Each structure stands twice: as C-alpha cells, then as structure tokens.
C-alpha cells in the first residue's frame, strides 16, 4: 500500500532558538533515520507540523535544502498549535509530514538576478532561497535581499543579514515601520527599499512573501517599473488542513494553495489578487 498521505512521522527537537519575543525556530530531526535520509525538499515548500494532542499546522521550511540532518521551522506563536509548539523544549517530540507544494522557481531563475522582498515572518520561506543561492553563487546574477518589519525589535536573523551583505554581488536592505534612533537601516515601509534595489529589470526573478497588503503594493510598484508579471513570484498563505488538495480550505479561485502553490507567479494569481473574500 502507498504511504498514507495524512500520517505524520515522529521528529525530535534538536535545537530551539528564541529569535525574538514570540518567534522561535525548531531544528528537527526525524527519529527514524530512514525517513530522515529520504527527506528532501525544495525552498518554498512547507511541512505539516503536529503538536501531540492538539493538531497540525502548515509551516514553511527555513533550513538549507543541502542540510541532511535537520529540518528547520521558524514559527510565531499565534494560535492553539503554534502557542503550544512555543512551549516545547530540546528533546521533545512532535510530528512532521511533508514536504508539500510548489516551491520557488529556482531552476527558472538560473542566470538571473534574484530579488527577495519579504515582510515580517515572510522572511522564513525566503531564507532557504538565500542559502540555495549562496551555495551556487556562480549560477545566479545579483541578489537583492529586502526585509521589512513593523517594529525594529521584530527583525530576526540580524547577524545573518549582516553576513549576507558582505557576500559578493549581494545587496541587503532592511526597513522597520517603527524604529528608534539606533536603527541603522531605513525607517519606513519595505516598499520604499525598492528605490535603492539594484537589479536588472529585464532579467530578474522576484520572490515575495509577506502580508498580502504589502505584496499587493509591491507588485503594483514592480509592474510600474516594467517587471513582467511572470517574473514576480509570491508565496501565499491560506487555511490548510490536509496539505494535499483534499480538504478544500485553501482554495483561491480554482487554485488549491497547498498543492498548486504556495508559490505562484503573479499572472496565475492576478484574477483574484486583492479581491475581498478570496
């Protein structure tokens, strides 16, 4: 019999990192070595993470796809499952099934500039792209990493951003809507960073993840700059319970975000993008 697509595998928390208040990263390892050995994912895909006795939640994968021994999830505690996950400690067990969905178009992006535009915890599904590109630097053009947060305290991975900014051919731009005088970056919306971003408008792949309102304005801005619709990719989020296109919650027009996405080129989304109720 084929594997039951609804059944999780047990995984152990190898390390827990408190990123900022309310946001934490779990580095996990499947307890069955065979499952761990066979586990492969593409940047932009997600797992269903199961908290014992509470339920499952869809979470994007932040780890490096080349990392053989650990699977990472950066999570904000906002609901029943994620608030429970926040209380787990190193050595605790949970369930994982996945990976699911279509990831970022990395093969298509070969030889092109990479533009990452993320807001809030939208940086999580994009970080595996950064790792991917860094490992294959010669295969890609210039990389622009833009991240915006509401408050300066919400910025996670500050150290990493600083390291990435030292890398060749890489531009890192950070913004916070609200920040004190010690904030060395831009104060304002993430979209304002676009004016400083250096990339070839005719040969770039833009990857975006964040609040939909942010993505809407950013798409508009990019289109005005002449970026083609199918060079703009968005990671979408909806209620997901089965992750395999059966439960119906994540439908977006005719799309099932879980299996047709969660990453889409803008031209596949534009019919309903920004329309209330979708």
């Amino acid at each position: 019999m084929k594997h039951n697509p609804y059944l999780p595998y047990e995984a152990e928390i190898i390390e827990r990192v408190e990123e900022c208040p309310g946001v934490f990263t779990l580095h996990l390892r499947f307890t069955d070595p065979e499952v761990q050995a066979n586990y492969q994912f593409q940047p932009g895909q997600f797992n269903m993470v199961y908290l014992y006795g509470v339920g499952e939640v869809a979470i994007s994968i932040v780890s490096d796809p080349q990392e053989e021994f650990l699977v990472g999830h950066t999570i904000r505690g906002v609901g029943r499952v994620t608030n429970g996950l926040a209380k787990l400690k190193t050595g605790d067990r949970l369930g994982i099934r996945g990976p699911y969905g279509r990831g970022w178009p990395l093969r298509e992006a070969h030889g092109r500039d990479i533009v990452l535009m993320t807001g809030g915890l939208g940086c999580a599904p994009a970080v595996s792209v950064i790792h991917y590109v860094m490992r294959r630097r010669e295969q890609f053009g210039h990389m622009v990493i833009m991240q915006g947060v509401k408050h300066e305290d919400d910025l996670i991975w500050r150290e990493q951003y600083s390291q990435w900014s030292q890398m060749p051919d890489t531009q890192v731009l950070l913004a916070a809507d609200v920040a004190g005088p010690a904030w060395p970056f831009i104060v304002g919306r993430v979209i304002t960073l676009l004016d400083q971003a250096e990339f070839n408008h005719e040969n770039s792949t833009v990857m975006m993840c964040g609040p939909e309102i942010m993505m809407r304005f950013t798409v508009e801005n990019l289109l005005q700059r002449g970026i083609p619709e199918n060079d703009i990719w968005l990671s979408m989020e909806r209620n997901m319970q089965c992750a395999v296109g059966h439960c119906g919650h994540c439908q977006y027009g005719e799309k099932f975000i879980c299996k047709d996405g969660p990453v889409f080129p803008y031209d596949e989304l534009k019919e309903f993008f920004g329309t209330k109720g979708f």
Partner: protein
Amino acid sequence: MSQDIAYLPRLRFQELLDTLKDAGYRCVGPHVKDGTILFDTVDKVDSLPQGMTEEQGPGFYRIKSSSNERYFSWANGPQALKPFLFAAEEKLWSAGRDAENHIHFTPVAPEAEHIAIIGVRGCDLAALRLQDQHFMEGEYVDPYYAARRQGIFLVAVNCSHPADTCFCVSTGDGPNASEGYDLVLSELDDGFIVEYGSERGRFMHERLNMQGASAEQKEKADEELNSARNSQHRHLPPGNLRDVLFENLAHPRWGDVAERCLSCSNCTSVCPTCFCHSEAERPGLDGSNSEHIRQWDSCFTPGHSYIHGMTIRADTHLRYRQWLTHKLGSWHDQYGRSGCVGCGRCIAWCPAGIDIVEEVTAICSGKGMGNEA
C-alpha cells in the same frame, strides 16, 4: 443466456437482493426514516419505500403515499452516495505517547466492505464521478475513500419521478443513469427492465437468469424517462458559467441572498459533490493517546477561511459567493465540469428556501459588475 436488456418481474425483485448477498455484498437501499428517505442496510424488499413518493420545494420536503406500488417513484432524500465513501466523520490515525514522551503514530487501516447500493440515481453517479476525481485521481490518493470505493457495487435506477426541485436535465446528469453503474433498473408498473454497465454487473445480470424485455416494455420505460425529462422546469443557465460568475463578483444579488442565507451549511452537507472537510484532534483524557479525525466542513462556517487571527470570508455574502462561484465556476477549471449535478437537494434542505437556480440565473443576467476591490 440472459438478454442484455432483460426484464425482472416485481415478484422476483427479492432475487436481486439475494443474488447480491450471495456474492458477498451487504445490500444498502432506501428506507423511510425520520420523515424522509435514507439509505440503510436492506435484506428484504419489503423495507424499501414501496408506494411512497415525496413532495419537494424550496425549504420543503414531505414524504407521502404514491398512487402506485412502485419502489422508486420518488426522486431523492437528503443523502446521496457521499456518506458511504466520504464519511461524515472518521478517524485517520491515532498518536500514542509513551513513558519517555515518544510519539507513535498508527494509521487506521481503511475499511473495504463490499456494499451494493440500490436505488442510485443519475445525479448521484455524476456526483460520485466528481468525488472520485477529487479524492482518487490527483497527485495524492485518499486511502480511506479509495478502499471504500473499490468495494461498492452500484444498482442505479432511471429516475421516473423527478422532484419539483430537480434540474438534472440542465446539468446533463439525468434523469437516466448513463454511466458508472454496475446494473441499472427502469421501473415499470409490474417489474423492472434490468441492464448492466460493467463486467461484474453482467455477472449478476446473468445469474438472475431473466427473459428479454419486450419492445413495449422498453418503449414504456423510454416514455417515462421522456416525461420525467419534460417535467423539470428548473434549468441552470447553459454552458460554462465560470467567466460570467467571476465577472459578477460585485453583483448586488450576493448581498441580497446573504440577507436570506443563514450560513447554516445544510446545502453543503446535502450536496453530493461538496468535499470540504476539517481535521481535528480528539485527545484521550489520560493523555496517553490522541485521535486524529476528519469531519465534513463547510465554506459557510467562519472557521473555513480562518488564518492566524483573521477570517477571509467573515460575511455571509462572501461565503455564499465562494460556494456558488466554486460549485458552478472554478469547478470547471479543477475538474473539467461544473460541480453541480442538478439533484436539487440544496434547494429542498435550505431552511430559508434559497434556490441555487434562481440565484445563479439572477447573477448571470448581470452584465459584468466588475471585481470588488
């Protein structure tokens, strides 16, 4: 050897059930229950709704005596085949936690009971085809649905008594059963014309050892189907409504229907094609185990579109719009046809008597009210 188009006198009808039982099937058929007609185990034809018919209308369903002795002179009850394949609630797996706090997952082995369902209509078969596509023909196969599907033997009945709420002619799914059955019956005053639609249907057909149906009997059955066809006065607007529906997302009718809709989910429960379900956790009281279940869900609930702190469809008008634009619109993109099979159940079982045909006709007559920002 039996004729392909054979005749089974009513007095021999029990033999059909007995033949199926001998072949290892549990027979399931219509029963009068709770003031309606529901499917349940049937051993004797006596328990079928002989001499019964029903009256249906928007928000209205009553069973009553018919003026004949037929078993199938009614259209449909609230159930379709859906609950037999896609269970209203079922356990998918369980998790146990041992003394070291390790978690052990145990899948529920999908049950594969052999069931013969008697009295399936054309609309039910069309809906089954759609659920097959959804649960079994995509990238991921639902093992629970697939196991049950394998064990189902379908005895269809050509529908001679559509209800007032039926509109299967306009969806192309009835009143006759055209494909997907094992056996199909056309009921006449004193018996049934019996045909087969599959190899295993042919096997049963042969075992019944019937005479061929006469030309008059076939003609009578055709006449009845024609009259059933002509009796339907509800019709969906023709063609693929996808574009016209999505061009009318701001039509005032959505607000109008939302004033009447209770967002109660009756329509999605009785709809034979609605597939939405939620997954839920049922932890044991002592903490040593937890069951992971799924149950039917509905796009009419606030939880359906909930996502970390917000509900995408907080208002009834957005939920009704989601249901209708999916059923009659985006379903075409997903499964190559509309998700409506014209059974009319959503009309009869709506406590507010909302008529999908009336609503969609009003919306599709709009000349593109544009996308709401």
